[in-house]
């Protein structure tokens, strides 16, 4: 008996020694000073993305275009799920060190987190070695896709927040979308329709609560920093933010708008707009083509969001990254494919086939850009404001902040609880998270 106990204890001890230090997967520093970025042998690679069903024919066409012109590399595109699922799967694969794709898309807010955690390969040497014209992307996009000066991702499918509105209805009823947040009250009152018993039959607009990217800009343009300069605290409970939050709550209470949250919130919002139960919705420019295709009864317009002291918007959509834990062969093939995906012509294909914005300066500022506008006149609202599209706030704890912010705002807007008290509680939690992850 004693022997058995002794044996098992030793076994346990031995095994725990194996894991005592934790997963110390030290990255093997590239020994050879001159790393080749060329693809020399045939290789098959995987590309993970979050493009929904309606984009799959386009994906197949673009990937097919690459495969047929690059004999050594075969790319398999895989739809993993939405951005959240993609993030979870990517991080899990990174932690395990296996099952990583050669190339992956990711939602823009993850850039800082991934950069800090070492998930992405630093692309700066690749850019240098192949003389890639990264500056064609413009300073804003470069900043948005870097972390601490390193180009850890590249811009892929870029979008920004816009307000889709019912142009037909606007012209018929003389509704004008205000340029300033201060003028919104009047606009909302005019554009809302109510039944005799006071319930809203047509909302002036709908505010997405499931992703803070949509209402973030209202705060930023009202002078709220969200993450203070000290990087470990938030001003989301400060006077400017509190005032704005109270305004939102007031509008919801008055029935001018509702706070879209929960499962199916996005598709319900879309449906309400299509059914003309909402005059406008705040959504992403990337869904432009989808709206155009789904709306049969009226003309869809796109407007810049009402502004405050500033009229900034934030970059959204996705970036491309190469996971760091792959071997060099895979990374080289991924780099080849990456260049193709963000190349000028392919980028135009994406922009035409979806609602994503052309990303290249060499397109936006030239006649090609004008031609694009002729095909999609509604995009004028965006083109007029290109300089206002800013990189997102970079902080390793950003996603945790967003989760907390959303869940508190959900309660404030939908349940109508006290704004001051809850924003205080929220700020405490966020401060703790920010300090923890810096």
């Amino acid at each position, binding site marked *: *008996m004693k022997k*058995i106990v002794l044996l098992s204890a030793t076994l346990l001890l031995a095994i725990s020694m194996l*894991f005592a230090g934790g*997963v110390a997967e030290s990255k093997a520093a590239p020994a050879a000073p001159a790393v080749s970025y060329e693809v020399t042998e045939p290789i098959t690679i995987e590309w993970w993305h979050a493009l*929904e*069903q309606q984009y799959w024919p386009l994906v197949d066409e673009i990937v097919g275009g690459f495969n047929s012109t690059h004999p050594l590399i075969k790319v398999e595109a*895989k*739809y993993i*799920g*939405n951005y959240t*699922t993609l993030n*979870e*799967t990517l991080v*899990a*694969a990174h*932690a*395990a*060190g*296996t*099952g990583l794709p050669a190339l992956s898309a990711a939602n823009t807010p993850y850039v800082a987190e991934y950069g800090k955690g070492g998930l992405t390969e630093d692309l700066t040497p690749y850019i240098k070695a192949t003389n890639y014209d990264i500056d064609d992307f413009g300073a804003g996009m470069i900043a948005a896709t870097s972390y601490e000066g390193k180009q850890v991702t590249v811009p892929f499918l870029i979008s920004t927040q816009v307000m889709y509105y019912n142009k037909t209805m606007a012209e018929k009823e003389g509704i004008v979308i205000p340029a300033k947040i201060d003028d919104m009250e009047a606009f909302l009152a005019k554009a809302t329709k109510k039944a005799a018993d006071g319930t809203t039959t047509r909302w002036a607009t709908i505010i997405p609560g499931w992703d803070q990217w949509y209402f973030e800009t209202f705060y930023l343009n009202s002078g709220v920093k969200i993450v203070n300069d000290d990087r470990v605290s938030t001003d989301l409970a400060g006077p400017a933010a509190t005032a704005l939050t109270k305004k939102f709550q007031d509008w919801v209470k008055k029935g001018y708008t509702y706070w879209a949250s929960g*499962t*199916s919130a*996005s*598709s*319900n919002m879309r449906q309400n707009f299509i059914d003309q139960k909402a005059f406008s919705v705040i959504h992403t420019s990337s869904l432009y083509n989808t709206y155009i295709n789904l709306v049969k009864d009226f003309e869809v317009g796109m407007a810049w969001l009402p502004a405050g002291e500033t009229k900034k918007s934030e970059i959204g959509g996705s970036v491309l990254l190469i996971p760091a834990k792959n071997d060099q062969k895979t990374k080289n093939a991924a780099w080849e494919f990456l260049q193709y995906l963000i190349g000028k012509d392919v980028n135009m294909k994406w922009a035409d086939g979806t609602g994503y914005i052309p990303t290249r300066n060499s397109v936006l500022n030239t006649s090609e850009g004008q031609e694009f506008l002729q095909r999609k006149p509604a995009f004028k609202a965006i083109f007029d404001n290109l300089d206002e599209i800013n990189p997102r706030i970079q902080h390793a704890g950003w996603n945790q902040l967003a989760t907390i912010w959303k869940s508190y705002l959900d309660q404030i807007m939908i349940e109508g609880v006290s704004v001051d008290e809850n924003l205080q509680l929220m700020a405490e939690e966020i401060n703790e998270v920010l300090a923890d992850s810096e």
Partner: protein
Amino acid sequence: MTHEPLSHDQAALLNQRAIAKRKVATVLQYVFAIAVTLFMIFPLYWMFITSVKSQEEVLLALPTFWPREWHFENYRNVLSRANFSKYYYNTIIMTAGILFSQVVTGVLAAYGFSKVRFKGQKILFLIVLGALMIPLQVTFIPLYIMFANWKLTDTFLGLILPEMVSPYYIFMMRQAFLTVDDSYIEAAKLDGMGRLGIITRVLVPMCKSTLITITLVTFTNGWNSYFWPKIIAKNETRRVLTVGLVHLRNTFAGLDTMNNHEIMAGAVLAVLPVIILFFVFQKYMLTGYEKTAMK
């Protein structure tokens, strides 16, 4: 309390009333039972009905209770587009692996804890039982990290290993083996049978019904498992049916309610094998749960 003796007629009348009362009670019981049964079976009926409707019919404001046309291609779509055939394959292999290892280790250990003696047997048996109190919901964190380190994520081994041994199985088989009279064992030994022979040719055949019952429970639990497979097999390559069905539902969320006809088809595919097994092996499955209650 004393009763006056009843006359024949009075007794007959009382008897008739009693019979009538019983008839009413019986009818009531049937009505209740049938109503409740229909109510309970409704979700499965609704699942199946939705799975053969067309997309438009599913979304009608006034739902239909019998499909207008039968759309079995929903199943074909789910199998090919949503990769359900791969999920089926993964689930079968995983369940088979768990089944095989639980039976083998279980039967062996049951023998070791019932028909023989060795030092420390009692304590070791308690250790086996003690494992029953340590749920996967607590140990999954280090288990996941262990498997990630051993590069076993998204593999069959990863799916099977944590469930290879079941203390419940060992316990139940041991109970069954204990009821086998030792004289059979002695006789077998005299015939020159070794351990394996005794186990496979004496004990197991004599405890067949228990074995089948518990094995069916193991199969069901394996087929229906969700928690661990979701954690260890995130990638599509080794995803199992249960996780795949939920994943299907979530990834159609962008178009949400519009795809329920296919999601239900997926659900039918996922739950059908166990339901079939249930009806075939009903006798064993029902007694299995009763046996545990009777302890």
